[in-house]
Structure formats: C-alpha cells, structure tokens
C-alpha cells in the first residue's frame, strides 16, 4: 500500500524556514575561500619568461611590452579562470583572488596589468 502525503512533513518544515535565496546584490554574497576569481599580478616578481601566455587556453593572457619590459596583460573578457597561468608561473607573480563581480559596460574592457 502506497502511503499518500509523504511530503507533508517536509512541506511544513519548509513553511517555517527562511528563504534559501539571498537578496543579492542588496546583500553581498561572498565567494567560498577557495574560489578562483580575478587575478592579481605582481610586476616586480615577473621575469618575462612568457610561460603564462604560452599555456593560456583561451589566449586571454598575452605578452605586451610596457615601459620597456615584456610582461603579461590579462584580458578578463576572454579569461575562463582556470588559473593555469598561476600554476605555470615559476616566480608566483600571479595570484587568483575571490573577486567575481566583473560585469562592465561594452567598450570598457576589463584588463589586469
């Protein structure tokens, strides 16, 4: 015999619960500590080896010459945040942060230099 109303208990429990959704963006919703977001680049540690640009799967990281030094520039619109550049860097010059709010208007590309 199949028992009807098997979900009644759960339904009442859910009625008294507060909503599982949060009021983002009015209420900030921080990412988990291990999250890979926008990267930080420390130019003084960089030795211009170009490993990050060579290993980038989406060509978001390219080597450009700025102030007489060849160094990577990260185009975040192309980036898929796999952190391969962070792993390939022999000098730990690239570090991923937990920042994820990267929406922006067209014509104003997000670039990390």
């Amino acid at each position: 015999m199949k028992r009807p109303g098997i979900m009644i208990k759960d339904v009442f429990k859910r009625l008294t619960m507060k909503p599982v959704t949060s009021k983002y963006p009015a209420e900030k919703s921080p990412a988990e500590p291990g999250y890979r977001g926008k990267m930080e680049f420390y130019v003084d540690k960089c030795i211009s080896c170009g490993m990050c640009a060579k290993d980038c799967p989406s060509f978001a990281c390219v080597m450009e010459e700025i102030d007489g030094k060849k160094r990577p520039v990260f185009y975040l619109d192309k980036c898929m945040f796999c952190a391969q550049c962070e792993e390939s860097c022999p000098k730990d010059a690239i570090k991923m942060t937990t920042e994820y709010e990267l929406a922006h208007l067209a014509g104003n590309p997000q670039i990390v230099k």
Partner: protein
Amino acid sequence: MARVTIPIGPQHPALKEPERFMVTVEGETIVDADVRIGHIHRGLEKLFEQRTYLQNIHITERICGICSFTHSTNFCQATEYILGVEPPRRGLYLRTLMNEFERIHSHLLWLGVAGHEMGFDTLLMWSWDDRERILDLFEDITGNRVTHAFNTIGGVRRDITDAQIQRILHTMDIMEERTKAYIQVGLNEQTILKRTQGVGILTTADAKRLCAVGPRLRASNVKYDVRKNDPYAAYGELPFEVITSDTLDVHGQLVVRALELLECVKMCRYMVQNLPAGEIRVKVPRKVPPGEAISRTEAPRGEDIHYLRSNGTDKPERLKVRAPTLANILNVAHTLKGANIADIPLIVAGIDPCMGCMDRVLILDRDKESCKVMSAEQLREYSIEWYRKEAYR
C-alpha cells in the same frame, strides 16, 4: 486512423537543448520516431588538435557543463596511459572524490528536471536546493562550481585540508538524510508513480542490442558499471554496489539514480576517512611520445570514452570523444514507439540527455562551402572509399 508526422524540435518548449525528433502518430500514440542530431555541433575535436595537452585539459572540461570533471579525467587518463605514468594514490583518491561529487550533483539535477517534466516543480526546487551544497563544496575545494580545472596530467592540482574534510563529512550527513527522503518520495508519491510507472519501457534484450549506457542500462536490469567492471582511478579499492532495477521504465531510472546517490555518499565518506598521505601529482613532460590510448570512465549519465592519438609533439593528433548521450539517444527513438505524445518530454529527459556533449559528426566541404549530414549507408561507403585511398596513412 490517419498517420500524422509531427516534428518536435530543434526548438521546442519541451526540450532544453536543440534536437529534432520526427514522430509519426496515430491519434495520441506514437508509431514511429526518428532522431536527427547535429544541431549543436561546436567543432571541439578540431580545436583539441590545435591546442597543447595542458590547454586541452581545460577545453575538455567544456565539452559538457554538468559532467565536466569526468571528461577531463578521461583526457588526463588517456594521456597518462600513453606517457606511462601513474598518479600518486592521494591524487587518484581526490580525483575519484570529485567524480563522485559530480555524480551526486548530476543525479540531483536529473531528479529536479524529471520532476519538472512531470509537472512536479516542488521536487525541482528541493533537489536543486540540496545540489547547491555540493556546488559550494566544489567551489571551495576546486575553485569553481562547474568547470573545476582540478585535474591535471599526472594527478590533481589542489590538495584538500582537514577543515574541508570536516565540511565534506558534515555535508554528506545532510545529503544522506535528504536522499533517504527523496527515495521515500520516489517510491510513494502518487504524482511520480502515475507519470513514470510503465512509461518508456526498454527491455533488457533491447537495452543490450541498442548499447544503452549508464542508469538507463541499469534500469533495464543489466548489471554493468565501468567503475566496477573496469575500475579506473581509485574505484578498485572502494566499497560500493552496482544498483539495478527490474521495472525497466522511467521510474526504474529514478530509483537507480536515487539509490546510486546513497552509494556515492558512502563512497565519499570512505574516501575522505581513508585518504592516503603523500604527493598529489607527479611531474610530466610537455611532449607526449607517439602512441594511442583509449580511456573509459563512468560519467553520471553513462559510459564516456576518449580515444587519444599522439604524434610526439606537445599537441594531440586526434582526440575522439564518445559522450554517453550519443549511446543513449538510439534507445530513446526505440522507447518512444508505443508511448503517448505527452510522455515524450519525460522519456527524453529520462536518459538525462546532454546534446551539447554529443553532437560531433558533420561533414563540411570547405571548397563548396556546404555541410551535410550523412546516412549510415553513405557514411559506410564514404569510410570504405576513404580507407581505400589512404591505405598507407
């Protein structure tokens, strides 16, 4: 009664992804069904040949958004077979742990989608709420919710901390309790029983003949699971049962998936409690010697196969992917026969289809700028002709 042929898709409210089903109906009953695939071809296999192995790890993850980890596991495994390296045991355990997390989140996702297709949206809301816990774990451990970038050739990229182990154990306790509740709902709730029992029946003989895979095969009472029959990663050391069902219908698939969730929870607990100490990865060269390898894994949807051929450079010469949906779509066309029109969404959703994974064969003629889809007979003649010309490749 007159026969009418109705096209369903490529764009149709009942389907989540573009795929065309031509169904011939007599009244409400389907007498013939034909599936036309290829509407979401992305050219990924060609892309693999133009990227290095390191880059390809991240691109193989993009084959599928839901079972992304199993595709990257497969690719890394195939490369490791050619290189002849064995990842350290801790690396293998972590890889297996993520595979099982992925199965939990995929099965919960399916449960929600199936609930939605049968007009039972409460189940969708609840199961997707529980799925969030696993996605949060993924975010903390691997760094992202769906495309994890956790695998690498020769092991995994991140280690796991004691705090994370405690968190996993806590989440698994919640998952076990919730899964037991879902099993009760699946076995007793009238809404589910009325919509799923006797719908989409695939007999054991037909399942074997049409090469069904994964939960669809196990729901047809065939005890086959790559994790058990051909263990990879750390599956050889884990205690678990292969779940089968003898009801052969969509309800059987629901029961198989719900009971598999319990097995996943059991395996995850065992893995974090018996996690071996040591390294998580070995260093591998960037260039892979010439060779070929086939790797198989049990994706949440079924058996997933990668064939890799290398040529001594740092880029693969060929990577062929056989995603589980391609194996399962044949039996959908078969199961649709004799069903009602109203059951189409549920039968299609039953195999947990992922069209984006599957669509890969499309013949493009660059000179004439045309594209065509070949029939089996044309493809056979084409392949015989091709091999005759290229006998000494």
